[in-house]
């Protein structure tokens, strides 16, 4: 089984840690404790020889004081950009982070998720805001770490992309 390092990127408190915990341990907590530095998790999906072991680096979110340590991105095969659907500025942050991740990693696969989909009453990201991104080839989906909606799918889609990229690289 091959293993790949992936990262979660996004503004602070968008739900990066919550998404990983939902994915890896099927749990969710309402209480917030900011990630300091980085925490690492792992999960295997699928069956060998198609299966893959994901080593997930959950990075501290960016705010005015903490900036992303691009050194944590080294050797990363793909990433998930996380946006909080109730805070429009987190989408801009995600786009900015993607640009910087691209500078460090080049064109590796990634997926953008708009999280907290269970709070549609407080939703403030316009539906069309993602259309431009989709047109330029981004994969965007909605998730909720709270209900679990879309979480598995997001990681699975990224995993499939990683496997495709891996095959393409070994074939050449």
């Amino acid at each position, binding site marked *: 089984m091959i293993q790949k390092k992936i990262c979660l990127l996004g503004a602070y408190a968008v739900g990066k840690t919550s998404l990983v915990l939902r994915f890896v341990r099927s749990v969710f907590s309402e209480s917030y404790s900011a990630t300091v530095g980085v925490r690492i998790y792992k999960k295997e999906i699928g069956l060998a020889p198609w299966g893959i072991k994901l080593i997930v680096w959950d990075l501290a979110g960016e705010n005015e004081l903490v900036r992303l340590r691009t050194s944590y991105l080294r050797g990363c095969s793909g990433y998930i950009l996380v946006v909080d659907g109730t805070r429009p*500025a987190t989408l801009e942050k995600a786009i900015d982070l993607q640009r910087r991740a691209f500078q460090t990693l080049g064109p590796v696969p990634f997926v953008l998720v708009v999280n907290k989909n269970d709070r549609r009453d407080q939703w403030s990201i316009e539906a069309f805001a993602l259309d431009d991104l989709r047109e330029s080839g981004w*994969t965007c989906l909605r998730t909720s770490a709270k209900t679990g909606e879309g979480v598995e799918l997001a990681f699975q889609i990224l995993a499939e992309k990683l496997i495709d990229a891996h095959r393409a690289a070994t074939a050449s």
Partner: protein
Amino acid sequence: MAEPTDKPRTADQRLIEALSPTIQHALRRSLRDERRAWSEALYPIMLPSVRMAVWAAFHEAVESLNRLVEASLSWRSWQWRLEAWRRRKSFAEVVLLRTLVYRVEQVLLIHRETGLLLHSVASKDAATKDPDIISGMLTAVQDFVRDSFNGGQESPLNELRTADLTVRIEQGPWAVIAAVVRGYPPAELHATLTAAADLVHQEMAQELREFDGDAGRFVRARSILEGCLQAAYRTPPPSSYRKLWVLAAAASVLLVVGLAMFVQQRLRWSDLAARLNAEPGIVVTGHYDSGGKHVIEGLRDPLAADPAQFMADAGIDPARAALRLRPFVSLEPALQLARAREALSPPPGVALRLEADALSVEGAAPRAWIRRLREANLAALGIRALHLASLRDLDAETLRQAMESEAIRFEPGSSRLSPQQQQRAEKLAALLVDWAKAARELGRDPRVEVVGRADRSGDAAYNLRVSEERARRVRDLLAASGLPEEIIAINAEGDAAARGADNGEDAAYRTVRIRLSGDSAPSL
């Protein structure tokens, strides 16, 4: 796009924003003292092993040390005993803590660029943590130190330390060797690790350069890493003459109480005989003094408790006793159970219970062991019935998770299987057949639900039809591969999952997945 400032914030968000600078500040302050920062970053890794290690990790070593130290009536050993009593630890644990010089518990070979684990070895019985995670954490700490302390130059970090664990790190151009050491490693360990790192780079240069996530090629590093699993213990130092007067004083006190103890001894023998007799599998037929020893006669099932332990518990010197217990086979339930346990050697996580000749097996076991259990000659053990309702098949559970996370994919509007997806489905089918067979062997009622889905590119009726065709296609393949047809059901979900999503046209919705049930025990 709107800034968050022009919409009202929730109390949570305000709190989060207020706290963030504090957290940053705390982090920065902790960096002033490098060592503290490192050990904080490593704390989550180390803590569980620190807690568990003392008596779980080294009991082989403790065993021999214990005998050695108990035999010598040194002042130190009494100090240790006192300490053990005060700290509510066993004497052996304290001895271990005081005599261990160092032991390499785990050696990891880590790919430098990605922080992925290439291979790892651990010393026997060491309480180690998941090496994949340690590997990542160590790499993260290195990255962090590199950024924070020397402006992006090569890392100088070659040692991390907590209260009693040290991590020695040896950097190579492509890979890093890390040794997790309990106690204080000697300087020579550094040379061993350097040599190991050199060797790995020499022997596996090409594999290291080409590493793309497949760690399978690095099993060859095993023997090199095992060479780093070293340990040393210190024997307790000789007792100090200055403390001899204490021993002399103790001796005279012993003399005074000697007489009282003699009387007590007589009572102890009777008590011991009674307690042995009450023990399942031991029958005492008589006890008397003979030739300066106390003779205890009777019968003992070889699987019954060890009488020596009873003597130790009663504070009786085994040299003063002569046990004449002839072997016999006891039919008491406790002995019957012990015999079953010995014959079946249940894996950890499995409990055996015996009630009226019926054996209940509970917990989770690997499939191979369950098969052996089914084939065992239980009648020979005096067992008439076997209850497996609370036994879970570990392999089936792992397999089940993996199978449920598989998806067979289709081209838009098509229910045809591409050669690659066909192969994928066949592999899944083979595993399902196996899974269903194992579940039936345990008397369960396995069910396979084949769930077809479509993206939302057509209208709802069309999508429903496509999803059903897909599910049928896979169902037929499963049945043709030998999965009993009566346990398969199909479920066409159409575009239900895709409809609510932004990316409803995505390939992720053109799938067939399976849902499994009926393999676990009915909950009581």
